[in-house]
């Protein structure tokens, strides 16, 4: 049981072999239990994050494509809307014109018809009046005949009739 600090003999070589065994066991166990599992864990996590980033990038690209597509569509819809609106406005204006024209036409025809009716009524009235005049004349004539004897009477009667008829100016 001697103490030593540095011994350069066969025992040192035996210690060396012993320590080599210890070190190899230590490194093997540390590698098996600690280093390799943790490294694998880190590598797996890195791979997973890389995959997530890649898929996120893919999805972003897809989303951008979709966005562009929808923007295109929206722009087309805007144009279409504008077109439809102008078309509708044009059609409305046209229709308005048509309606006005139709209304004018109808009004014209109605007016014409009314004119014709008035004309006809006038004619009718004229005829009636003529007929009445004739009747009155015939009645007068009969009265003349009945009272032909009396000149004065006759004249008086004529004046009467004429004053009766004198009021009727619309015949002229």
């Amino acid at each position, binding site marked *: 049981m001697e103490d*030593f*600090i*540095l*011994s*350069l003999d066969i025992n040192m070589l035996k210690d060396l072999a012993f320590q080599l065994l210890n070190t190899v066991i230590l490194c093997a166990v540390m590698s098996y239990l600690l280093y390799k599992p943790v490294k694998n864990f880190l590598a797996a996590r890195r791979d997973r994050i890389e995959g997530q980033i890649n898929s996120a990038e893919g999805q972003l690209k897809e989303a951008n494509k979709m966005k562009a597509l929808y923007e295109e569509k929206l722009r087309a819809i805007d144009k279409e809307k504008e077109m439809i609106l102008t078309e509708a406005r044009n059609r409305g204006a046209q229709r308005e014109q048509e309606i006005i024209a139709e209304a004018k036409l109808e009004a014209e025809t109605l007016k014409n018809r009314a004119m014709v009716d008035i004309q006809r009524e006038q004619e009718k009235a004229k005829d009636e009046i003529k007929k009445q005049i004739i009747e009155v004349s015939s009645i007068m004539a009969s009265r003349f005949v009945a009272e032909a004897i009396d000149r004065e009477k006759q004249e008086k009667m004529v004046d009467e009739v004429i004053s009766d008829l004198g009021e009727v100016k619309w015949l002229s």
Partner: protein
Amino acid sequence: MENQFQSIDPQAFVLGCSAIGAGLAVIAGIGPGIGQGYAAGKGAEAVGRQPEARGTIMSTMLLGAAVAETTGIYGLVIAIILLFANPLVGMLS
């Protein structure tokens, strides 16, 4: 004079000379001291010139300093051998 030398124990003589030898051996520490100081100065200069490469300069400097230290360590090991595992005493018998 002759009597004096004859009365010296040979083992004590060897041990004393070994101690002197050990003291001389650690003079080897001068070289690595100068060398490492020079390396550290150059490293500081390099960091001053290129602060962004600090890590690389540091590890390279340490590597060089460690290699430069070798001779000093050899001297130290020889001193330790002379003091604690003296092979010369064994040669006496």
